[in-house]
């Protein structure tokens, strides 16, 4: 019987509360940029809103959801109580205090630097310290995941760590590596500048350090979705996981390939040579592989379920899947969006082709499609799957859950397809208002309005989602007998797993080698050529 339910609920409700506020801000931002007159429209309000939207979605929604889900998996997959639950609460409170600092500094206009910071623009130090507290809180979670897995292995010698936990721990390991870059940027460069201890910063160095974090962080966000693909969707569809080994290899590949690729965010930057950009482009190509492997294994798992359900012929199994189950539906919709998002991502990483789309709405569209679409829809599905466990109640209406998921997917397409198109035509990013009287821009108007409608659909869907979760807590349904959480088992449970696929020591050595090869010179270069530094620009005071 899980004991950390309150801890899980506290985390995930924090995540979704931030999400609920941030999505309304997102809709207002689209309204401001559209040709329609929006209330409270000013450049200052707009950029405060963008900073809040980005920070809430990228740091608060993701980190708290992943932590809460991790605690849930640790207990339900390992079938043991979470060790050191009190430390889990400590990490949670640290994260909450950090979030309060971030919200307070952003809303008072003292931290309008976006969630990606952009030194030498510099906010009040309390903004960065708030983020550091969120990150340190998440490190507590990483430690607890590592301890939980290690303890289980000790008491179950020779047994394979259940896949859901193995993948969660992979994510904890990935996150520890990922945060090194941003932690170094904030602690060594940005925070000293924000306190006024240094007058100028090496901008190229800050960008390089942030790029260390910037790509792997999206895999941190994405891994819970993949855990659901592998361990929840086949179960919900009534089938088996096609291959446990392949699943482990995919998670390991994310750990290996997700990190040494951040320089692809700096293709258009002047502080790195084409050579190192090309090396990291080549490594970036490899990250397509684990996703393509996942597509195969998950599709094959669903096919198994569809055929067990009586599906015949080449594609008859698709129709035979139980689409009325929210987890199955969400997986289908997520895969659909993954094709668009993945295609966009291939364009972005294609070295020279990046010049066509860099810092255009194409990029905004890409990460909304792949994160807001493919990933967040799985966060919804995971919540629907685990809320009966956490609250001991059954859902009031699966139809409402399905309607919410459909509206989210359709809204995300309506939102982001016009953005993709406008980005390709050269609409640039991070602008509070466009001059629609300019003939080069005037034709954007209907596209902007179309995508605004998509945004409105997403807000309605988000409200439905939060409503659907609240109904669990209202005790509208009689408490059903609690059935334990069941993760999909493999079609052919492996006889004996190689120990390399049951731990992370070997893979950490590989990550170290890859990161040393990919990042040593790009970082050290700053100290060799010693570029002139740029004077700090405080955004929270008049210059």
């Amino acid at each position, binding site marked *: 019987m899980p004991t950390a339910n309150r801890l899980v609920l506290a985390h995930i409700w924090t995540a979704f509360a931030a999400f609920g506020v941030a999505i309304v801000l997102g809709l207002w931002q689209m309204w401001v940029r559209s040709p329609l007159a929006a209330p409270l429209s000013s*450049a200052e309000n707009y*950029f405060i809103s963008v900073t809040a939207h980005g920070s809430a979605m990228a740091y608060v929604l993701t980190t708290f959801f992943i932590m809460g889900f991790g605690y849930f998996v640790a207990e339900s997959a390992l079938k043991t109580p979470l060790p050191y639950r009190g430390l889990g609460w400590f990490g949670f409170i640290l994260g909450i205090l950090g979030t309060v600092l971030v919200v307070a500094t952003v809303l008072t206009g003292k931290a*309008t*630097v*976006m969630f990606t910071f*952009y030194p*030498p*623009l510099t906010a009040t130090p309390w903004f960065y310290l708030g983020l550091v507290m969120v990150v340190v809180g998440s490190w507590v979670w990483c430690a607890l995941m590592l301890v939980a897995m290690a303890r289980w292995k000790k008491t179950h010698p020779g047994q394979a760590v259940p896949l859901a936990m193995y993948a969660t721990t992979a994510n904890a390991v990935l996150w520890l590596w990922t945060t090194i870059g941003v932690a170094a940027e904030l602690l060594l460069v940005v925070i000293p500048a924000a306190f006024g201890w240094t007058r100028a910063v090496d*901008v*190229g160095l800050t960008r390089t350090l942030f790029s260390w974090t910037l790509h792997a962080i999206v895999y941190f966000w994405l891994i819970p979705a993949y855990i659901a693909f592998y361990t929840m969707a086949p179960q919900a569809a009534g089938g088996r996981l*096609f*291959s446990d080994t*392949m699943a482990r290899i995919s998670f390991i590949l994310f750990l290996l390939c997700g990190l040494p690729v951040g320089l692809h965010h*700096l293709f*258009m*930057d*002047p*502080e790195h*040579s*084409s050579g190192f*950009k*090309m090396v990291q*482009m*080549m490594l970036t*190509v490899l990250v*397509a*592989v684990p996703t*393509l*492997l996942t597509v*195969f*294994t998950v599709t094959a798992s669903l096919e198994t379920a569809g055929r067990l359900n009586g599906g015949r012929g080449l594609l008859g199994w698709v129709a035979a899947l139980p689409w009325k189950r929210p987890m199955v539906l969400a997986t289908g919709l997520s895969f659909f969006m993954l094709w668009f998002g993945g295609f966009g991502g291939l364009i972005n990483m*294609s*070295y*020279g*082709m*990046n*010049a*066509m789309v*860099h*810092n*255009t709405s194409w990029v905004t569209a890409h990460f909304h499609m792949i994160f807001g679409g493919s990933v967040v829809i799985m966060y919804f599905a995971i919540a629907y799957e685990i809320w009966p466990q956490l609250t001991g109640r059954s859902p009031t209406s699966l139809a409402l859950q399905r309607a919410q998921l459909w509206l989210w997917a359709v809204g995300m397409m309506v939102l982001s397809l016009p953005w993709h198109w406008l980005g390709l*035509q*050269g609409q*640039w*990013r991070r*602008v*509070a*208002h466009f*001059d629609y009287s300019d003939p*080069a*821009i005037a034709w954007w108007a209907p596209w902007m309005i179309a995508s605004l409608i998509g945004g409105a659909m997403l807000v309605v869907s988000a409200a439905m989602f939060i409503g659907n979760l609240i109904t669990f807590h209202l005790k509208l349904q009689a408490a059903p007998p609690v059935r334990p959480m069941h993760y999909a088992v493999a*079609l*052919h449970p492996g006889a004996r797993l190689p120990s390399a696929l049951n731990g992370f020591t070997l893979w950490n050595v590989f990550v170290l080698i890859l990161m040393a090869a990919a990042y040593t010179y790009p970082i050290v*270069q700053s100290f060799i*050529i010693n570029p*002139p*530094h*740029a*004077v700090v*620009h405080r955004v929270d005071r008049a210059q």
Partner: protein
Amino acid sequence: MAVDEISTVRSERIWTYAMVAVAAVMLVAIVHAGIAQHFGTPSNSIETVDPNTLHLAGEFVSENLGTRVGLDGKITTRVVTTQFAFAPDCVVVPQHMQVTLRAASPDVLHGLMIMGTNVNTMVVPGYVSQVHTVFDKTGEMLMPCHEFCGLGHSQMVARVRVVPLEDFQPDEQGRVSCADR
């Protein structure tokens, strides 16, 4: 259902090889485009410049900005990106000629792109950004700042005027500016 373990592993192996092959083909295409067709990234040779003295000395002093034809006939367009304007805010370039765009920032991070082209670069204080391009079509295009640089970021838009070669008439110092026409 007749899926034995051997056929499972076999199908996985085939798929893995196929996907690695797909990745390899993409890689070859990208490298080929980057190296053989020069479809690459800006600023290969890393050049530094002091943002604090940009306006005082060197190639980015105000009288040297805009488009200039060098003694060797090479065409270079220099712009400075500042909070919250380009200097100059309009440049003239000839059609069908190789143009080198050089940009630098005295204050914070900026970025620039020329709409309808593949000219795109970040402008990082401390470094010179450089892009080579050829403009195929005449007309006026927008050159906005595409990176958040402060509250005035949205106003930061310059213009690029592409003129037929016969209308591209440098003065005795080799300069061409929007004001001349």
